[in-house]
Structures are given as structure tokens and as C-alpha cells.
């Protein structure tokens, strides 16, 4: 997912704000075989559809990054369960294959690794948050 950068800092968060303000359940952008998606817990609204608002599109276009998503359902850990250190805080530069976080499912900690080198642009979850399959954990920038 290669997108043009205009104002990279805080874009994921501004997307989250748009989701809230527009009452959207989810925004998703697909490019090639990469995908970026933000969603929020929604109120049950049977008639709600998913309009593709211009400002959402613009915000997405403004974002260059690789969304790191969870491939499991469980609790996310940004801190090393043994060492207590945080390997990939916002702003950190990470190597390809480096551990970014852990997902704890039924007691087992599964590592989440960086598919490429880059800088951690945003963290969209907090230590111990429940996460679902496909949920964006953090966004990596650059490093291509």
C-alpha cells in the first residue's frame, strides 16, 4: 500500500476522528493486495450504510503507511511479557522481522513481526486491549 504523503503525522488518528464524526462504522482502502482499515464499535443501526465521503478519501490518500493488523483474536501486548520493555513505541525505527507486539490467545503469546523496516507512525491500540482479526494495531511508515 503505497500512498502519497502530505501530512503523515497523526493521520490514523484523524481518520479515527472522521469515523466518529461522520458516524461511519469503518473505512477501508485497498491498493494492490495491501489493505488499510479503521473501524469502530458501532451502535446497532440497521439502515446505516457506508458512504465514501470525500474527506475520508482525502485523509486516506494523505496517509502513507503499512497497517499492521492482528491475525488473531485476543489481548494485545505492546510490552514484552518477560522483559517489560516496549519494542516498538511511536517514533521507533524497526527492522524487517522485528517483533512489534504480541497477541495473547487462550494463554499463548503470538508475536507480531514487522513485514518490512520502517518507523512506527501510530499505535492504535493500548497495552492489554482486546483485538479482533484484521484490527489495525499500528502503522509503519517508509522503509521501502
Amino acid at each position: 500500500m503505497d500512498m502519497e504523503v502530505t501530512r503523515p503525522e497523526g493521520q490514523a488518528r484523524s481518520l479515527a476522528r472522521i469515523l466518529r464524526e461522520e458516524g461511519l462504522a469503518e473505512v477501508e482502502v485497498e491498493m494492490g493486495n495491501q489493505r488499510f482499515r479503521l473501524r469502530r464499535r458501532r451502535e446497532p443501526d440497521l439502515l446505516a450504510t457506508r458512504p465514501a465521503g470525500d474527506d475520508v478519501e482525502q485523509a486516506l490518500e494523505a496517509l502513507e503507511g503499512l497497517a499492521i493488523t492482528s491475525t488473531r483474536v485476543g489481548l494485545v501486548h505492546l510490552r514484552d511479557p518477560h522483559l517489560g520493555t516496549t519494542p516498538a513505541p511511536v517514533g521507533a525505527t524497526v527492522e524487517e522481522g522485528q517483533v512489534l507486539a504480541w497477541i495473547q490467545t487462550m494463554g499463548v503469546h503470538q508475536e507480531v513481526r514487522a513485514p518490512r523496516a520502517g518507523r512506527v507512525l501510530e499505535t492504535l491500540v493500548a497495552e492489554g486491549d482486546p483485538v479482533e482479526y484484521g484490527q489495525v494495531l499500528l502503522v509503519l511508515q517508509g522503509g521501502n
Partner: protein
Amino acid sequence: MFKKILIANRGEIALRILRACRELGIRTVAVHSEEDRESLHVRLADETFCVGPGPAAQSYLNIPHLIAAATIAGAEAIHPGYGFLAESPRLVEVCEKHGLVFIGPGLAAMRLMGDKAQARQTVVQEGVPVLPGTDEVTESEDAREFARLHGYPIMLKAAAGGGGKGMRVAHGPEDLERHFLTARAEAQSAFGDGRIYLEKFLPRARHIEFQVLADSHGTVVHLGERDCSVQRRHQKLVEESPSTVLTPELRREMGEAAVRATRASGYSGAGTVEFLFDPQSGAYYFLEMNTRIQVEHPVSEVVTGIDLVKEQIRVAAGLPLGFSQQDVQLRGHALECRINAEDPENDFAASLGTIQELHLPGGPGIRVDTHLERGYVVQPFYDSLLAKVIAHGSNREEALARMDRALHEMRVRGVHTTVDFHRRLLETGEFRRGEIHTTFVEAWMSGPALEA
């Protein structure tokens, strides 16, 4: 009673369970694949978890993800629906380990009734008749002995066969001699396994099943039968209750047999005891027990007025059944047509696409259980059931008229469906007269009746 239940299914049954929970004041946790993100059951649930990508093996069958979702959400119980993990002893085990209630039978009963040989043995001890059959037969002398005891026709089945393959029917002693040798040779060449079993063959048998409900306090009741004889390649198409061929005496006798079988397995929850019924002789034979809520459960619900899914949940929570056998009355007649996303003109090939237009039937005596809505995308990953149309009338004629009227009203555009196929099927003289049997649909489709 539970405060929160996780629904480990999708489609119409997930919605059905969600409705029962809502009525009981129980909060719901929906799980879904990425493809089902927009589904009705997801939008209606109190909480949702995406548990994997489209293929069921990675999402709806992903036990660790389901358990994690249940634990995180603080659900006390998991309702498996039908299909997927509904008959998985593994899920029951894992639920127990994690302090979750599995809404269904206990592990022992599920294992016992899930094993055909053990189930057969269990019900025989209760005096429930089973279809006469043999273990492996190697000598034609043994085959003749079986024929002498049980009479013709006899089905010869390859041990390694399945889905109708390697099956031959012998109508007399000459047939038996001939088929015995060829069936063995065939089985050997087709499956590399020449073992043959014999079974009494019922040419125009009916598939009649009894709905049972058992609580954890020793009460077991049956809710009458469903006649599911209208099948195509072992897939049920139309179900009805009551059956046109059971007398009140037979209903009581078979119902009691179903209750005995259920009790003997230590069962609790909702289940179905399946029988083959021979209308010529009035004989019935236990086939198997399904340890889940079934697709066709609404048929029994509308004739008894009992909400089976709510009872399942209540019983799983340890509550006693609120009624006894005498309280169960069958009122009127009910039919269910399963509307699938299939093309009857093209050998019932799965039909994928987006629902462009949808009008569901309604009016007196019609219930439609469906997850369909305009814009719904029929996916290749899941089964083809789109909707269940259930018609209830004071008698069979009224139920049939209502079903016919409902199918006329129903409009689904965007995918091929079996709506028109059902209309033609219900118009046949055989169906009108109730002269149905498990091979009726195949006979009708290959016969001149189709052009009529």
C-alpha cells in the same frame, strides 16, 4: 440465566439465536468472518468480533479465536447453531476447560450419539428397532442367510463407498448371487477395498424425525415428528409436520422410542431422532440422532408453539423444562421450503452474486427465517441456504395454499434461487397427495412430470 451469549455461527441461524437471546434479555456477542462484516446478525448484536478471513476453517471453525472472543467479552455460554462446530466434541471440551457453557448436549452424549455404531447399540438396548444390517460379509452363503431372515429387497453397500457410490439393490435370490460377486469386484477396483455390507432396502421409505427436548433434571419430551422425505441427493428440500402417514398410535410409539433413545444417551438440550419409515408395513427404524438444533426446527415450533432455541438456552442454564409431554399439542400443519442460492436449471450449481432486489412474503401463517437483505453478497465460502419459508395452516391444504401464495410473492433478484423449483414441486400430484419418499424428487425430475 445467562447474561451474555456468544453466537458461533452466521446467516439465518445466527439471527435466529440472536432473536431468542433478545427475547430472553440476554446480551449477544456475534462473531464473523471478514466477508460477513456487514451481515445482519453482526449489525444487530450487542458486541462483535471478527474472528478470521472468509474461509470457515480460519474463522467460524477457529476454536481459539472463538474462545478468546467469548472470554474477552465475558460471555458465559456459546451457542453453536447448526453446521460448523455444532457437533464438535473438541469445542465442548475447550468450553469446559475455559468455564464456558456449550449450549448443546454434554460431551459424553455428543460422543455416544455421534458414533453411528455406538448409537445403534445404545438404542437397540432400549428396544428401539434399527434397520437390519450386517457386518462385513465375505461368503455369499451369509448373504443368503440375511435374505432369508429379513427378506428382499436388500442393499449391497461397499464398506469404503459413500454418497450412493458402490450401492446395488437385490430384489431376489438371483439378483443377490449376481450382485454379490460384481459388487465385491467393483468395490475392490473402485475403492481398493472389496468389503461389502448388507442392509435391508426400503424402496419407498420416508424420512421421519422426532424433535426431542431434554433438561438436566431428567425430563425428556418429544415435539412430534417432521417428515423430511423430500430430498435431493440426501439434502432436505421440504419438511412438514405432522407427517401424512403417521397415525396417532404410531406417533406415540415412535415418539416414546425417540424419548427412550434420548434418555439412554444421557442427553440434555434439543436433539433430533431420525427414523426410516416404511409406509407399506408401518415399520420404523432408528437411523441416527442429530445432537444440534436443526435447519428445519421452525416446523416443529409453529405446530407446537414452543420456541426451541429459547428452550435450548434455558435448559443449558440448568433450568427445568416448563412443560411435560401432555402439554405438547400439535396444532394444524406446517411446511418449510429451503430456498437456496442454486440454479435448478444447471444441476443446482451454486449461484453467487449480490442481491439486487428482495421481497419477502408475509401475511397470515407465513414465517420467513433469513439473513437476506438487498445488497447482501452470496459468498462462495458458505452453504447456499438463503431463506426458510415456513407456512402454517389449520390443515395441510391451508398450509400448502399459504406456501404456494408465499412463494408467488417472494422476489429475489441477483442470484438464481430454488423458489420456482419449490413451486413446481409442491404442485405435483404426488406431493399434493402426500405420496412422497426419499427418492421422489429424483424420480420426478427425471420423469415426464417435469415438463407437465
